[in-house]
């Protein structure tokens, strides 16, 4: 694609430098702390599954036991391994014992550290290899069936019932969808555990559970075989269980995860220490599992104005990129998010949308950009809404977006009906095909509205990034720099789950993942 916008490369470099500095500023935090959710993830990755009679996941029970004893600073892995060797049980049996209140992991006599670690490393490696295998199988399937043409058509299913979701997802795939996102029940991000099993009662969405992941993956593989196109599956790696869900997704072969470094802090009032630590580990898992993350900058524009705050989206894209790199994600795994949220009644609003979309495209040429549809200004006038989605699709095809979250004509009314989704897909097909090479056909005038807006956006985000770099990300967020929302460093949900690591903190997965990431290369 020829470059439509003239971009001041020095400014871009300055943005990237500031973002790198911001990411570096978090390193101490990331290396010196763990969280209850990271430790639960370790438990899961070591093969412990299931819930107790009250539906509490064994991972929670085990971690809670050690945490109550004030010993989580060492990491759960050691305690688990020690118990297994001590009792001659499998890790799963150990966890079940804890759940039955028959075992106190902190009270067992300590086995030689190297023996425990050896055992744990082997178990961990098995899991890591399993994930790698799932990843490779998934990539092979993608290669065999092929992915749809870009922009990929991304639609949501949100019935709250996994079996109803499956019907809708299969139908959507047949209609032409490339990506199915199972919307998650609204309160789940604030649950400090992951629900279990197949679920049929969710609220505005279906619970993210491992079994639900499995059911949907199976359905999509099936329908993908039928239609001869690989269908990608998305869920939410977000909220208080961020890394656990990353592990579940890695195990069940998900393709994408909503996974943002800042979203939970701002929009779910999750403590920022907790979030940053969790996102780092979850991203390492996603990186290794070959998952594309979708960042959530679009959300800024649901509370802030898209013209005034356009540059905050861009700045956040740079930060998400830097933090993604820090965790080992490759460029193609970065589904950096931006959105078409300018007031449709604004004169030349479409031009300003093009400016942001094109600028984002040129600044992140290798990323799999995720473009979010109009939502805030959607109206219950479904006819007008369908048109707004049409211009959104046009902006995407002109600027070469990768992941197109399709807007729904009923956005202002209800979660999508089957027919709404079908009309959205038809909308995208029509525009993407009828204006297929429009982007290649046109050049933006060098001193026009679009070019000027792009320059303004870049300038503003450079200034913002420099400011954040100077103050640190955490302080900046507490000053309300994004979406007009300010959060306290020590406030918010889940702070009690942040634990300072001890000297002998042990978690085999950091090393295994890091090594795995650097060795497995690109997707195809």
């Amino acid at each position: 694609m020829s470059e439509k916008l003239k971009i001041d490369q020095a400014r871009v470099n300055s943005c990237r430098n500031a973002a790198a500095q911001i990411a570096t500023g978090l390193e101490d935090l990331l290396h010196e702390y763990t969280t209850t959710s990271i430790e639960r993830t370790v438990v899961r990755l070591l093969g412990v599954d299931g819930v107790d009679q009250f539906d509490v996941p064994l991972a929670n029970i085990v971690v809670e036991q050690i945490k109550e004893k004030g010993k989580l600073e060492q990491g759960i892995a050691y305690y688990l391994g020690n118990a297994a060797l001590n009792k001659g049980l499998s890790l799963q049996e150990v966890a079940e014992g804890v759940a039955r209140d028959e075992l106190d992991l902190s009270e067992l006599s300590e086995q030689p550290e190297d023996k425990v670690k050896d055992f744990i490393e082997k178990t961990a490696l098995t899991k890591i290899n399993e994930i790698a295998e799932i990843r490779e199988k998934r990539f092979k399937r993608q290669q065999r069936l092929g992915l749809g043409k870009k922009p990929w058509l991304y639609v949501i299913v949100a019935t709250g019932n996994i079996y109803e979701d499956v019907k809708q997802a299969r139908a959507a795939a047949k209609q032409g969808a490339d990506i199915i996102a199972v919307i998650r029940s609204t309160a789940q991000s604030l649950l400090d555990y992951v629900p279990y099993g197949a679920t049929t009662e969710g609220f505005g969405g279906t619970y993210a559970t491992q079994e639900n992941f499995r059911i949907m993956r199976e359905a999509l593989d099936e329908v993908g075989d039928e239609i001869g196109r690989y269908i990608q599956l998305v869920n939410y790696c977000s909220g208080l269980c961020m890394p656990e869900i990353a592990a579940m997704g890695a195990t069940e072969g998900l393709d994408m995860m909503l996974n943002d470094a800042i979203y939970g802090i701002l929009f779910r009032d999750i403590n920022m220490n907790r979030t940053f630590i969790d996102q780092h580990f979850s991203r390492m898992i996603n990186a290794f599992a070959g998952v594309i993350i979708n960042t959530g900058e679009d959300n800024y524009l649901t509370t802030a104005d898209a013209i005034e705050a356009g540059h905050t989206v861009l700045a956040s894209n740079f930060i998400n990129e830097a933090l993604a790199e820090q965790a080992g994600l490759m460029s193609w795994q970065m589904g950096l998010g931006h959105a078409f949220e300018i007031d449709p009644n604004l004169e030349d609003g479409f031009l300003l949308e093009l400016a942001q979309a094109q600028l984002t495209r040129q600044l992140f040429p290798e990323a799999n950009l995720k473009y979010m549809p109009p939502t805030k200004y959607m109206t219950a006038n479904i006819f007008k809404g369908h048109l707004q989605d049409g211009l959104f699709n046009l902006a995407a095809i002109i600027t070469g977006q990768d992941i197109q979250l399709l807007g729904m004509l009923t956005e202002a009314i209800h979660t999508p009906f089957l027919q709404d989704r079908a009309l959205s897909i038809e909308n995208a097909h029509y525009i993407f095909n009828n204006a297929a090479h429009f982007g290649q056909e046109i050049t933006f005038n060098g001193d026009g509205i679009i070019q000027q807006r792009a320059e303004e956006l870049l300038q503003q985000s450079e200034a913002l990034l420099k400011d954040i770099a100077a103050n640190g990300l955490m302080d900046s967020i507490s000053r309300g720099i994004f979406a007009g929302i300010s959060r306290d460093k020590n406030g918010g949900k889940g702070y009690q789950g942040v634990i300072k690591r001890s000297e002998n903190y042990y978690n085999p997965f950091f090393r295994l993942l890091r090594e795995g990431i650097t060795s497995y290369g690109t997707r195809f």
Partner: protein
Amino acid sequence: MEQDFNRVKPYGDTLGDGKTQLSFTLPLPASPEAKEAARRLAAKMGLEEVEVVYMNELGEGFSFFILYGKCPYSIDTTDIAVARVETKAMDFYQVNQFIKEKMSRKITVIGACTGSDAHTVGLDAILNMKGFAGEYGLERYPQINTINLGSQVPNEILIKEAVARRADALLVSQIVTQKEVHIQNLTELVELLEAENLRDRFLLVIGGPRISHELALELGFDAGFGPGTLPTEVAAYLAQTLYEKRN
């Protein structure tokens, strides 16, 4: 829940939810009362949990409404049987082969847009050389002798020409349906043919965007072809049905 074909209902995102979208204009200026009137109207149609999601003043005392509601009714689909053209699918070559082999002679068809209807595109799509959607029209079939009378042909003229040219089949196109004018035109044609004792002489075929095979049978025609019809479908029908009629 599995679909019960005895009780089929609209589906939004859950089986049986009955979700239905409506829109209409009322001759009322926009107001909470107008909105309530819209809601009541939908309620009279039997819809439950009606939501008037959108109201927009259109000027001159009119307003437009968009509504959603739940349809409580269901349809027993197990007893629905809609007549359809049953002849076997054949392509261009097969049709010509069939006529050549089975019939002693070429068949003659005569087409027209009747009454005041001047929409020839649909008829031409079936009849003209060029055809439609990449398929040849009947003129191109060596075994079919095709006469196209074009637009705004009075029924009397169509019959006269059909008799004169010894047509086997009449192909009538009706596009304009305002005030049910197509029903009038078509009924008149059948009546005229019956009055002249000519009804059984011809295969009577109609087509158009609001035509269905059911409607055709209802009106006394032999077959009806709706939107998106391809020339081969018509040709296959004609060849096979004329052959059967002969025997």
